[in-house]
């Protein structure tokens, strides 16, 4: 009984859809498309708009960009004060450069640790690979905030690492690690390592072993074969993994604010303070726009590689 009723309903709803020139297929694209336009793309335009506004004591705390002037003329008031402010106060330049440096060093460290790990997992017996990979992903599912917090107790002056090293007799006086660049590097490498290993593993696993055998037959030593065969072929994984670590690390907020000190300024934390402590929305927006300009090229690179990878998987 319910069968004809439901088919009647679907056909009438389809008629309704086609009246608007839509097929079911079109709807599948349209719904997420509209959502992303509204909640992902348009917000950037608003950030850009507000970065050209002036801070004001009002709700919301900035001046309007468009104004109806005396004669009914629509005037646009572009205010570059926020951007000029970023240029004149050296705090921002220092924070941007420091963020780029910290993100870059952390990415290299992630690669140095992640590559041998991904290689080891890819070369492990087939039945081991699943569990080994699972163990890489598992920490990623537990709270990021809490995993960063765990390092405070370890790296503190009277923390577990210092206690352990003194007990071993390696050092006499506790090392000063927490609230320095070193603790931020540890925090970023620790949190982002899975993002480096997974794409690396994906390319290394597909690698054809016969190529290495051929290189060995031709007399190449293992190191040479690795440099000439494995490394170039795993380039897509290296690039994808590095971008997955580098881009979010530049704007990282939680790690520098928990593990960093007053001398380890990062731009994510600066933006946060500009917004929450100083309540200066235009300057916070300008900081965001400038950060986005730094990241446009890496993000587009990431998209290009992502697209290429999906196409390669299709063939």
């Amino acid at each position, binding site marked *: 009984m319910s069968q004809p009723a439901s088919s009647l309903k679907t056909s009438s709803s389809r008629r309704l859809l086609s009246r608007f020139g839509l097929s079911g297929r079109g709807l599948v694209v349209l719904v997420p498309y509209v959502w992303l336009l509204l909640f*992902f793309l348009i917000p950037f335009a608003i950030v850009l708009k507000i970065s050209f506004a002036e801070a004001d004591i009002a709700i919301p705390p900035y001046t309007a960009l468009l104004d109806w002037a005396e004669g009914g003329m629509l005037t646009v008031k572009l205010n570059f004060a926020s951007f000029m402010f970023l240029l004149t106060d050296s705090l921002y330049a220092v924070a941007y450069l420091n963020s780029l440096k910290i993100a870059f060093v952390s990415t290299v460290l992630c690669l140095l640790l992640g590559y041998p790990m991904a290689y080891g997992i890819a070369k492990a017996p087939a039945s081991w690979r699943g569990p080994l990979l699972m163990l890489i992903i598992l920490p990623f599912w537990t709270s990021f905030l809490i995993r960063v917090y765990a390092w405070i107790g370890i790296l503190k002056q009277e923390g577990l690492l210092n206690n352990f090293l003194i007990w071993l007799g390696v050092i006499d006086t506790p090392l000063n690690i927490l609230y320095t660049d070193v603790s931020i590097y540890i925090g970023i490498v620790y949190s982002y390592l899975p993002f480096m290993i997974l794409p690396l593993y994906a390319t290394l696993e597909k690698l054809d072993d016969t190529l290495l055998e051929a290189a060995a037959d031709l007399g190449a030593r293992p190191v040479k074969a690795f440099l000439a065969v494995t490394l170039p072929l795993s380039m897509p994984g290296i690039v994808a993994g590095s971008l997955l670590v580098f881009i979010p690390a530049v704007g990282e907020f939680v790690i520098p604010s928990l593990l960093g000190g007053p001398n380890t300024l990062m731009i994510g934390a600066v933006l946060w303070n500009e917004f929450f402590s100083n309540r200066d929305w235009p300057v916070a927006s300008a900081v965001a726009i400038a950060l986005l300009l730094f990241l446009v090229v890496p993000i587009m690179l990431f998209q290009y590689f992502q697209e290429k990878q999906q196409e390669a998987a299709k063939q």
Partner: protein
Amino acid sequence: MMRRSGFVLTMLAFGYAFLYVPIILLIIYSFNESRLVTVWGGWSTKWYVGLLHNQQMLSAAWLSLRIAALSATISVILGTMAGMAMARFGRFKGRTLFGGMITAPLVMPEVITGLSLLLLFVSLEQLIGWPEGRGMTTITIAHVTFTMAFVAVIVQSRLVSLDESIEEAAMDLGARPAKIFFVITLPIISPAIVSGWLLAFTLSLDDLVIASFVSGPASTTLPMVIFSSVRLGVTPEINALATIIVAIVTTGIIAAGVIMARQERIRRIDEQMASASNA
């Protein structure tokens, strides 16, 4: 050759130790009698008891769980649609922009996403009076937006690696697209959908930065409570909370893994029987 595999093994051991030692220490010290996290004062479960009486923490956890469940569900629906469109619809108008909007949230720094969404909500409220203030609704919308990208990518890569011939066969036999999706495609991509939902759920449960931007005064999520108490200093109560989260996540993942492995086994037996009866 031996030396290099020795190097790889060392790095593997170091890497896994690096990933797990902090979590294990966190769990051990959640049972510490002493308030000082670095001094061992004997075994105790008092921090767990304290947690149960921490009303602020409990209500924040309840809010976070509701937001995570709701946003993961919406995100799975939208993300699956987006993944389908990217993997199966070939070239359509605006595909490049669409693809960009799906991959960009994967790497976008959270401070930018959070700030831009807040400014959107404020402007919308000025323009059309919605959303009225900020709270659970705005946090849910924000979480759907950044988690659906992860779901879309997972579903897309599952679909891309799949043989299209079964769907084509069904189409040749006259099945309508919606029927093909629900009878054939959906069961095959269900593991991707399950892991997409779990990932969206944990990402939402875990998010501090975006939620801080788009939340209102009455909506404090669990990460916000954790962050403010961690900033004041290390407390064993947070360790106890961390242990509970780790226990739940590990159980959930192992359960999901066992169920999926069993389903895969049943599917394989079905396939074998089908091919045996054909022969």
